[in-house]
């Protein structure tokens, strides 16, 4: 290996808050060669972002490097004074952050923000810096860069803002780009575009990359080497192919096994990782993963494993070799399914299912007035067409998945189905009764049947109500049972979702993300509904916890004969949980059908485009370009035609429904064959 561009040696970082000190990083070693791409993966709180921030000396308040060196171009950044660090930041090391909505200054023009590093680090004049900034904006694929220079961040979409953030990080042509979850806040098609862009720019500028992400799918195709982090240490470190073919550390193995896209059989529950990551206020003795590991022995609980290339091996001299810190690693043979051994067995009985439709949406449409005010409707002002003519049925005991990108109207659809909003046109029928005809007590009684579960259950609960009150409230509103009966019911609910009964006396903020989703599910189930509309129920969770929640939802479905309308942007999750799926684009359902049929042999070019973003690169595929048009002025006919590779003038007319049998239909003029 050539002389490393960046060498991190034995890095320790403490974070001190008022009442405690967290040993957040505990001995990190990493090397990065010029032009190389390294992925840092792990669940939230494992220290991957802190490692990245340490390089630039941008640790959060209370954060401090207590030991170790960060050699960049031979300079130790860990010991460097602030002026030296300032000379590195934005100049030889660029950084892109997660949320493009908040990481740009809202009151400064884009041109000024992109030119800022140039003015700081180079002797360019104002005009020269602006010219260079404009060139860079063109390079990151911002349309009409000259015009965009004078715009403000809020005038751009999320994807475009992230392009601006990348332009800002790259404008001084750094040797190293650090990207901290650069696509997590973006839609899948946009995510794909941004990662492609980073790849292309990396090749072109010859820079090294540190890509920090929780998303294993993102890492697989974008980096040369991966470091898997757990509890402030590196658990496993390997070139990307060997790691994905045969992970050795039991944590990496469990992480892969929990991925829905790696589950071979959707009928079986996902492998989960029980428990939670360690709180690092004290240095744990032994392997940090031991408390959650199915293979842990007394050795694991007493001695801390070092990074080695085998159970008896030492540390190889080559710091880029495949190493792992585990006493009982998985077998090295690639090809054998390393995760099979930790996958739980399939349940004995198949889920009961009836063909009776439970929820029937007919020609459902919802538009919102674009301008507020009391006269908006009368003026017939332009509206946002959030949902435009959707018809679908959800049968009893079935999971119907809705996939689509942000702004496609999937959440609106969920609220319409529950009856939280009235449709502009069309009907919602639950168990054969039209929601619009129900009034007063009947309507209230009906609400028991359909319940909602949210993405962020913490935000959806009153922070000043104890869990007991949160769960009792629906029963009180519906006038069910007396105090004792309600308490019994809540105890039963907590048992169902796997929370201790003592939870009733605690407040929502005292629970972890996964536990809160369990609470959200418990609240949704309090009234024994027949349909639960789950709006992105696992999007905020780490994969190991996500698998727990998905398994729980499925188990409860079997037990109680529930139906789910499962709304998500995550294709792998929907594929895993759903019996049938509907793909939404800009307020319309472009394709519906059995999950396997839609995912394996999509009819609609948009579905194909979505799937391509999560598949290995295929020369034959045509990745989706462009951005979703505004729902205030949707294209006529097929709303996807502005981004579709197959579109002709015919697509301006309303597309016909084409089918392939077994309920698999798409509305498209040029359906795909396959």
């Amino acid at each position: 290996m050539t002389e490393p561009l960046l060498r991190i040696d034995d890095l320790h970082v403490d974070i001190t808050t008022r009442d405690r000190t967290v040993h957040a990083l505990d001995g990190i070693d990493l090397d990065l060669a010029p032009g190389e791409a390294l992925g840092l993966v792990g669940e939230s709180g494992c220290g991957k972002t802190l490692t990245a921030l340490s390089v630039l000396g941008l640790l959060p308040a209370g954060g401090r490097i207590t030991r170790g060196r960060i050699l960049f171009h031979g300079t130790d950044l860990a010991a460097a004074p602030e002026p030296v660090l300032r000379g590195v930041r934005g100049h030889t090391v660029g950084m892109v952050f997660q949320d493009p909505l908040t990481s740009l200054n809202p009151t400064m023009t884009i041109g000024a923000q992109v030119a800022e590093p140039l003015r700081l680090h180079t002797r360019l004049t104002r005009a020269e810096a602006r010219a260079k900034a404009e060139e860079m904006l063109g390079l990151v694929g911002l349309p009409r860069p000259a015009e965009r220079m004078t715009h403000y961040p809020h005038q751009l979409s999320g994807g475009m803002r992230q392009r601006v953030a990348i332009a800002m990080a790259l404008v001084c042509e750094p040797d190293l780009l650090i990207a901290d979850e650069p696509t997590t806040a973006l839609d899948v098609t946009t995510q794909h575009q941004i990662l492609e862009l980073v790849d292309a720019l990396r090749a072109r500028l010859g820079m090294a990359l540190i890509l920090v992400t929780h998303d294993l799918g993102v890492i697989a195709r974008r980096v040369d080497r991966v470091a898997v982090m757990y509890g402030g240490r590196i658990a496993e470190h390997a070139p990307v192919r060997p790691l994905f073919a045969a992970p050795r550390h039991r944590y990496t193995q469990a992480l892969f096994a929990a991925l829905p896209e790696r589950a071979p059989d959707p009928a079986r529950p996902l492998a989960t990782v029980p428990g939670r990551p360690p709180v690092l206020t004290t240095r744990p003795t032994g392997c940090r993963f031991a408390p959650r590991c199915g293979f842990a022995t007394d050795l694991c609980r007493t001695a801390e494993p070092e990074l080695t290339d085998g159970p008896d091996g030492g540390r190889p001299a080559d710091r880029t070799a495949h190493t792992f810190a585990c006493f009982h690693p998985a077998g090295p043979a690639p090809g054998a399914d390393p995760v099979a051994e930790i996958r739980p067995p399939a349940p004995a009985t198949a889920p009961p299912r009836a063909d009776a439709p439970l929820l029937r949406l007919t020609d459902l449409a919802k538009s919102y007035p674009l301008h507020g005010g009391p006269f908006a409707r009368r003026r017939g002002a332009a509206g946002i067409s959030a949902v435009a003519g959707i018809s679908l049925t959800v049968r009893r005991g079935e999971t119907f998945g809705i996939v689509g990108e942000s702004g496609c109207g999937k959440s609106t659809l969920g609220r319409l189905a529950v009856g939280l909003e009235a449709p502009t046109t069309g009907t919602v029928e639950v168990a054969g009764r039209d929601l619009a005809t129900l009034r007063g007590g009947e309507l209230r009684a009906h609400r028991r049947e359909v319940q909602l579960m949210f993405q962020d259950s913490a935000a959806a609960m009153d922070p000043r109500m104890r869990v007991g009150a949160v769960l009792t409230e629906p029963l009180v509103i519906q006038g069910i049972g007396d105090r004792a009966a309600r308490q019994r019911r809540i105890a039963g609910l907590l048992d169902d979702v796997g929370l201790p009964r003592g939870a009733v006396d605690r407040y929502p903020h005292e629970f972890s993300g996964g536990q809160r989703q369990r609470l959200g599910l418990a609240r949704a189930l309090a009234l024994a509904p027949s349909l639960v509309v789950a709006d992105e129920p696992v999007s905020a969770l780490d994969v190991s916890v996500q698998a727990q929640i998905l398994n729980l939802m499925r188990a409860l479905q079997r037990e109680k004969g529930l139906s789910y309308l499962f709304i998500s942007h995550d294709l792998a999750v929907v594929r895993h949980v759903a019996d049938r799926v509907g793909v939404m684009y800009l307020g319309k359902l472009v394709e519906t059908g059995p999950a396997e049929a839609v995912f394996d042999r999509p009819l609609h070019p948009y579905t194909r485009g979505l799937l391509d973003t999560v598949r290995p690169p295929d020369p034959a595929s045509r990745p989706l370009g462009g951005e979703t048009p505004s729902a205030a002025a949707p294209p006529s006919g097929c709303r996807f035609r502005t981004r579709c590779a197959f579109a002709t003038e015919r697509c301006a007319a309303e597309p016909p429904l084409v089918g392939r049998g077994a309920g698999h239909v798409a509305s498209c003029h040029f359906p795909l064959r396959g």
Partner: protein
Amino acid sequence: MIGFLAKRLAQALVVLLLVSVIVFVLLHLLPGGPARAILGVQATPQAVAHFNHQQGYDRSLPQQYLMYLGRLLTGDLGESYRLNQSVGSLLAERLPRTALLAGLSLALAAVLAVPLGILQAVRRGRAADHVLTGLAFLAYATPVFFLGLVLVLVFSQQLPLLPAEAPQADTVGGILAEPAGLVLPVVTTALGIVAAFSRYLRSAVLDNLGEDYVRTARAKGQSGTRVLVRHVLRNALLPLVTLLGLYLPTLFSGTLVVESMFNYPGMGLLFWNAAQGSDFPVLLGVTLVVGVATVLGSLLADVAYAVLDPRIRSVP
């Protein structure tokens, strides 16, 4: 932008109309009424009746209000009962003086509060922050009249540095010619505002320092000071602009006390004296002026905000 302005102006007019109704009704509900106030307790019932008829006070309240509104539209604010002068000319004489006092106080408050607020934010949790926070709460909690008294006792009685009475000149120029006399009234009015503004700015700067865009700016290699000046300050000062506009009514009630305390011949003193003598037309006139100033203040704040914040500016 034009549409936005027109809409806000229309709203402002409605608010002003409501203000005039409320003030009118309130004043007429007071016991005794203007006749007793003007003619004295000794006046015969006939004299009172005559006076009421002359002034139109024997008609129904809505009728009186409409008459008042009609006169208002022609610019006639009525005659002062006590000063034998039209309310219009009284206001024309007094308003500039109060505006001068209020303007100087606001300017002083802003000049002091911005650096103090920034200092508190940057030194958060350290001695400077604690001391300034303590002083701010002290200044905030001290009633204006008490603060004025203390200042007079210290700077005029104990150390005869400044006069205890405000300049009595007729014109704004004349008042400005005696700056020493202005110091105590202006400082008294401003101190409470300094406290409020600096606390507000402190939290606004702290909020903004925690924002992601600050981290981005640091990742570009900006120094702490430059991040503060180039990035944080503009975003943190935006809400203060609104606060400035909304502070006009508070400012007026402050000048009311300060003017009577320092015998400063402005609108506050006029109002004070009129209230003592049930001088209805004057009270109504001053209240209306304050109402207009309040509404204009919040209108200006909105406009300034729209000009300064690009996110608001581009909303149709």
